[in-house]
């Protein structure tokens, strides 16, 4: 299967890309690694008329420590593989490479990007929930300049975000969390399947995968922990406020159960020995 025909451009600079995106408007889609977009186009569920390829903009592909802000800035075009291999991230934001390691398979990790998966906004994707647990900030850039959006305000629904059609994610900023406990519990049938449910924990923040129309926080569990309740008690609240989907892999009842088990295990791991 092959995509419908489209036009294509590969701007040399970020500014050129943003200018082109402003010009083409909603007819254009941004192509980074293409591992969300191209599959959708091949089955013809999406048919953009114009692709703007930002996959080789080196200014979007870097991982740097911002000591002053206490954050690690990851360029939106950074490939999952580079996130996995980053020693800086392993030390400063260890949950992120651990979660990126579970995305797809090695070939997919070699092409897919952090910005791409966050922008695609698939509720079954791993990294949006990790970003929630890590309290990340999304940096968007468009013809009106840059703006930052806390990840908790970024998602508006299935495959939808507050990103305007003429904006790009250029960077994602993660507070340093190297001294905090973390864990990622991903439940799949096969190794490279999408998560049936997954739970990302960094310190006292918990992100849930595939428990609603967007990545979610387990706020009731977080609250219970803050009140000093036990892990088991807190984990039993993990499904509160969620609307888990139903598909061939799981009923809402099953996901409601699973998220509690996985949250408990993730908390036991992240708080083990602390």
């Amino acid at each position, binding site marked *: 299967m092959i995509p419908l025909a489209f036009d294509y451009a590969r701007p040399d600079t970020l500014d050129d890309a943003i200018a082109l995106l402003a010009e083409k408007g909603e007819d254009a889609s941004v192509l980074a690694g293409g591992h969300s977009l191209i599959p959708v186009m091949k089955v*013809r569920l999406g048919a953009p008329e114009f692709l703007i390829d930002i996959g080789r903009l080196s200014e979007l592909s870097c991982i740097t420590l911002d000591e002053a802000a206490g954050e690690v800035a990851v360029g939106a075009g950074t490939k999952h593989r580079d996130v996995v291999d980053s020693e800086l991230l392993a030390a400063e934001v260890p949950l992120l490479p651990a979660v990126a390691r579970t995305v797809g398979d090695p070939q997919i990790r070699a092409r897919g990007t952090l910005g791409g998966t966050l922008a695609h906004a698939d509720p079954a994707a791993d990294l949006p929930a990790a970003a929630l647990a890590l309290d990340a900030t999304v940096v968007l850039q468009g013809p009106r300049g840059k703006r930052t959006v806390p990840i908790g305000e970024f998602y508006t629904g299935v495959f939808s975000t507050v990103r305007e059609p003429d904006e790009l994610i250029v960077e994602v900023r993660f507070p340093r969390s190297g001294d905090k406990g973390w864990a990622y519990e991903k439940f799949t*049938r*096969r190794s490279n399947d999408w998560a049936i449910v997954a739970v990302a924990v960094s310190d006292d923040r918990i992100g849930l995968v595939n428990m609603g129309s967007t990545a979610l926080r387990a706020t009731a569990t977080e609250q219970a922990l803050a009140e000093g309740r036990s892990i088991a008690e807190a984990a039993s609240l993990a499904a509160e406020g969620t609307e888990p989907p139903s598909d061939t*892999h*799981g009923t809402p009842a099953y996901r409601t159960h699973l998220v509690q*088990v996985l949250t408990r295990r993730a908390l036991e791991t992240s708080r083990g020995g602390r």
Partner: protein
Amino acid sequence: MSILGTRVVRTEDPVFLTRGATYTDDLTDERLTGALHLTLVRSPLAHATITSIDTSAALDSPGVVAVVTGADLDIAPALLFPGANKAMTRPFLATDRVRFVGEPVAAVLTEEFYQGEDAAELVDVEYEPLPVVIDPLAAANDETLLFPEAGTNTAAAYGHDSEPDADFFAGCEVVVTRDLVNQRLAAAPLETRAASAFWEGDHLTVYMSNQNAQGGRDEVAGWLGLDKDKVRVILPDVGGGFGAKIGSDPEFALVAWLARQQGRPVRWNESRSENMTGMVQGRAQRQTVTIGGSRDGRVTHYRLDVVQDLGAYPRLGTFLPMFTRMMAPGTYDIANVDSRARAVVTNTTSIAAYRGAGRPEATAAVERAMDLFAAEIGMDPAQVRRLNVVAPEKFPFQTKGGVEYDSGEYAKALDLALAESGYERLRAEQKARRERGDVRQLGIGVSSYVEITGGGAYAEDASVQVHPDGTVTVLTGTSPHGQGHATAWAMLASEQLGIAIDKITVRHGDTDLVPRGGGTMGSRSLQTGGVAVHQASGELVDLAKQRAAELLEASVDDLELDPANAAITVAGVPGKSVTLAELASREELKVDTTWDGQKPTFPFGAHVCVVEVDTESGKVTVERIVAVDDAGPILNPLLCDGQRHGGIAQGIAQALLEEVMYDEEGQPLTGTFADYGIPSAAELPSFDLVEMTTPTPVNPMGYKGIGEAGTIGSTPATQSAVIDALSHLGVTHIDMPLTPLRVWEAIQEASK
């Protein structure tokens, strides 16, 4: 030392590992130059009448040469399985009615392959939806008919001529009954279906991805109304089949018809998404087992009722219940066996053979019944099996399934598998985990199986020719698609001729070269085609001796083969010899022969599967599988083990992962590889294979088939292991596949 029984690496591989094999879509035959590309418009609905088809927009699309609909065809709808209800024919393009999602409705021919998909989207077909029937048990009620002119959805019935005996189980102390699902599976060979065709005058050549060139030729010729000798079918390298590439597909004949109509060659290669609805699927049985016996563990009565889902158009699936009934009692010596089956059409993809084809279904049923019986009387399931298997002294054993088992040592296979697994230690570990309430419970599943190979097609031709340069050509009517016949058949010829395998070329899959042949299916190749090659090679040596007798002025009785030199020599007279090559340079040195074993063989074995089940999440991990698979003497352990490995993986996949699913409207829910659960390396362990060798008297080599054994033994062992892990929680049965969801739900249900 004999080459037979040694680990010879494949002669096929150097090409496969460098420039790659040549599959149908890779062909560069110049007679296909300028071929049109076929794209099929397929029905998006499971059951509907077609009210109109508008092709005008598609015809205006770039590169479109023609758009053909059923109204344009002059070939009659075909009955795809001769024994099915005669009204259940399939048109080559649907005309008035569609009966499953994916049924071809129109054919778009374009200059370039990329243009076809664009144009196909523009063919405007209007449908009037009809009621849909997906469940075979509902279909059997005939409320919604797929073929109103047939007046029934039943395409074939077996053993239904008399009512079941209501008192069948009357004398039994214990009777257990259970409904089972042997779910629908996709064969999913990595190479999808592909064909290309061209005409030279009134002579047709079709390339196709298939398991049997000769059968494919006969079907294409029959459907198109051509003489067989006007049709040549060639199989290039074939990227897996697993039963789903037996016989021609209607699409292949359509490719040939379109090539004639257009006066140009035509190529077709389906996408995976098309393949997941268009290619035949397998299994798809609903079963009811009832087992009866005494509390001391003796099983005396067994009944199996089968409803076979055929999909929309009856194909080889119509035959599957016959194998299932034949093998119903499995390895067990059960005095009273009763079975019946009904095969019904539904608004789904057609069912045909998939690795095992009727036997895995029989084995899964009887093994599940044995477990249920064991649980009911509180006896170890391995012990119940040991008590009931056919004793070795009873062979040849006339079964209540109506066949004669040739040879077997079923208890020995079982004991070997149990010993290798460390069964007692595993049971102790299981007990310990149960006592401490471990979240991760251990389950041990045991299966004992026997199957039938080479069933139905016992004869095969072979031709062996020695050339003047000392090379050899072997022709065979068997047809590999990964099994390694080129290596294996060369070994058989080499053994007889004393000519090294690298000088032996094995050719197959071309009806001009090999006009007769049964192809490769039902694990038949070695015991038919392989034995034929063995026989032909022996006959060739006899022929060479006759020729040499004159040359060497010796009596034939005094001649022998000198295998070191591939020569005929006079016994005890050094230097007095003539090579096979020299003989071939004088006169063609070639033998054509037919081997007919006249009977099938019955390989058997036992598997033990060990799983861990996460009782909180329902997730199953296969820790270990021990497989004893006895198929008689082994020609090449490397190839044999490869067959076992692949079979075991597919068998575990049926137990745990794979199922073709539809929603109530007949829309496929598993239409891509993202949804359908083929395991990767990460979901499987390495496999523990144990050797055992019991020859068959059916052929001089003692060979039985090994292609499907792994699949047949591993599925019930794996299913049993998961249920065993949860039996202390009150779980007595879970239908396949045992997904985390199903396992978790079973635990919830049992704890109520």
